[in-house]
């Protein structure tokens, strides 16, 4: 049913690996050891690049130091405990990796040297390779630095791009897709605001809050311009149109309950935020009974403006606006920091975050293609219902790990 343009060397390797592993990474990061092969069974595995091995050994040594401290009775604070736990997990993965690797090497030697055991050894070798791949990809994943906001819940903002009503309908489709995705994952979500267009068939904008911690890490690659190619229902001559919608993914920085709104306000310096309440002229107070509860926040240093009007409560609108403002500011700061680091290295890494047109949804071909990693899936309804979106995200996550590992190597 689905066609993979993905960089798996073969389908069989991918098969044995549970979801969440990084098998394409291995292929890129490792030198492939080809065995002298006399007959049809290929005995081949790839080793971790020496740089990553060195890194892992460094962590191993650090853990030993920490263990020494621990046994000598030095008190560990929470951060140190966390660090210790992280190092232990990493070292365990490294040990497992080394064990599997030596097993593979042993088998390989056996295949080369002992013809009597060859068939058996080859059989065992083939069975061991997938397990080995799982172990080493887990190790690589642990070696890569985590995203600073990986543990955060997320905010998704959707806006139609070019294409008029059709773009608004597409934005609505995307919103439904993310809601379906959240439903599938049994994640709690909430539509914070949604403006439908006048005909009621599409959206002008919408903000979806997904309250699952870590959902930001999963969804952050959704940010960018999504393109749709289809014959719109409004089209009378049967021509295929191309329209776009933009998705912005932001980390949610804290809870936005009414109680914490004061705390939010206080995190900003006085004069940094202008709060506008959209009010008509007149005497106000008892003279008027307005239901207009719209609030607009302007963050003066950055020029970011957030408007919120969905709730009847001005207080809640304000709280929501502060949530979104904080998310936007955090994302902006992160991007700036990332940019700085990248410039410092002077590397030519293309950013996956800001590249425009990240994905195409082609209806006539029932095809979805992610342009960043080249992944294609031929099940448009499955993806748009949110059921198979995970496969696309998985491909992108893998791609990103590869890219980040490259950066890691470059910085080493």
């Amino acid at each position, binding site marked *: 049913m689905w066609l993979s343009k993905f960089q798996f060397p073969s389908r069989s390797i991918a098969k044995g690996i549970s979801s969440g592993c990084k098998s394409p990474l291995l292929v890129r990061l490792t030198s492939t050891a080809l065995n002298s092969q006399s007959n049809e069974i290929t005995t081949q595995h790839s080793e971790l690049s020496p740089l990553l091995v060195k890194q892992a050994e460094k962590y191993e040594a650090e853990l030993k130091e920490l263990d020494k401290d621990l046994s000598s009775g030095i008190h560990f604070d929470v951060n140190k405990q966390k660090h210790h736990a992280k190092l232990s997990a990493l070292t365990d993965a490294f040990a497992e990796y080394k064990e599997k690797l030596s097993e593979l090497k042993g088998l390989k030697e056996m295949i080369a040297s002992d013809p009597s055991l060859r068939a058996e050894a080859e059989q065992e070798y083939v069975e061991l390779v997938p397990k080995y791949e799982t172990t080493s990809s887990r190790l690589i994943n642990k070696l890569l630095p985590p995203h600073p906001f990986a543990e955060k819940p997320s905010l998704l903002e959707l806006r139609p791009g070019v294409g008029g009503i059709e773009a608004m309908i597409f934005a609505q489709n995307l919103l439904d897709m993310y809601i379906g995705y959240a439903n599938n994952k049994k994640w709690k979500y909430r539509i914070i605001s949604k403006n439908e267009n006048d005909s009621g068939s599409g959206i002008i904008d919408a903000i979806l809050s997904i309250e699952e911690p870590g959902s930001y890490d999963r969804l952050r690659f959704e940010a960018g311009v999504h393109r749709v190619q289809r014959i719109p229902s409004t089209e009378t001559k049967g021509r295929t149109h191309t329209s776009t919608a933009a998705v912005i993914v932001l980390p949610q920085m804290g809870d936005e309950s*009414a109680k914490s709104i004061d705390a939010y306000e206080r995190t900003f310096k006085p004069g940094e935020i202008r709060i506008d309440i959209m*009010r008509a002229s007149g005497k*106000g107070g008892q003279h008027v009974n307005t239901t207009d509860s719209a609030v607009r926040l302007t963050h003066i240093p950055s020029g970011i403006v957030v408007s919120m009007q969905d709730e*009847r409560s001005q207080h809640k609108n304000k709280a929501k606006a502060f949530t979104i403002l904080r998310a936007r500011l955090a994302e902006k700061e992160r991007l700036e920091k990332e940019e700085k680091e990248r410039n410092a290295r002077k590397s030519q890494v293309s950013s996956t975050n800001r590249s425009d047109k990240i994905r195409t949804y082609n209806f006539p071909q029932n095809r979805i293609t992610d342009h960043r990693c080249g992944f294609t899936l031929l099940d448009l309804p499955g993806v748009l219902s949110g059921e198979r979106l995970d496969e696309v995200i998985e491909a992108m996550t893998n791609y990103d790990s590869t890219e980040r590992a490259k950066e890691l190597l470059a910085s080493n």
Partner: protein
Amino acid sequence: MPRISPSLLRKASRIRPRLHLLLPECRSLQQASLEYKWLTEELPPDKSILSACLQRYNHTPLQYILGSQPFGPLDIICKPGVLIPRWETEEWVMELITTINNSALFNHGTPLHICDTCTGTGCIALALNHGIPNSTFTAIDISKKAIDLVKLNILKNKVGKGRLIQRNILSSTPSNVPPLDIDILTGNPPYIRKRDFNRDVKTSVRLFEPKLALVGELEFYQNLVDHWLSKTNSFFYEIGDTGQFEYVENRIKSDSKLSQSWSIGLKYDSNGKPRVVYGFKNNFKGARLLPFFKSFGTLKHLATTPNKHNTGA
């Protein structure tokens, strides 16, 4: 107010039947759509959307149709005959809570007694009691409807029990009636001048909200200075125009005793209208609150004698 153009009405009814009925009150398509959404989401099950839209067309306040109005973290029940809480009131009450909670009084866990006159739905008293730990409250209103509604709102919002008093504060001689020892006195008395009532008050308010809670000159501010200042450490009274602030300021300034012991301030709302007259007594509690109210509003008069308690402490 300009009339709604027929083309806008047609546009609205094309988007959704009945949406145009909301336009006279909402004035814009966007606001009408929002109200329509709220109506569909929150309408009590015994009412139909059509009848609700028709009521709106006849200027019935949305809060009477839906039966509630959010006020800070609370959801206040609203019924005809009792004034609907305004966003201006919500705004200054929320700021008052923040300011008091930031002050030293809160840190010391001092119990505070709140007294709210002309309480109406009880929104001010309940929000303060909900927001300020270790506080108790008394709520006073002349109307039985209001007092009954406060009871419902206490149950609905699960705030601590307060004392409710049905009384006309203007006619009863309050010198010997409790409460006698108040820390925070608040009030949203009727402040629309009679001469402004037909000109400045919106149709919906004029037709549907109780005149008893709306129309007043200076009598409640006079009552504040005459009877309440001796019983409280601070006061926060909502106002409709600067005249009401000036009255309170002049009364206090011109009285040699009061001007020595009271500091007076004026707070504007975020629509730039004068909204609250407030003051602190120059005694132990009042003086400790004072520094925290620098950003609450603008101080117009400072008590002329230094605080004896502070110099003694």
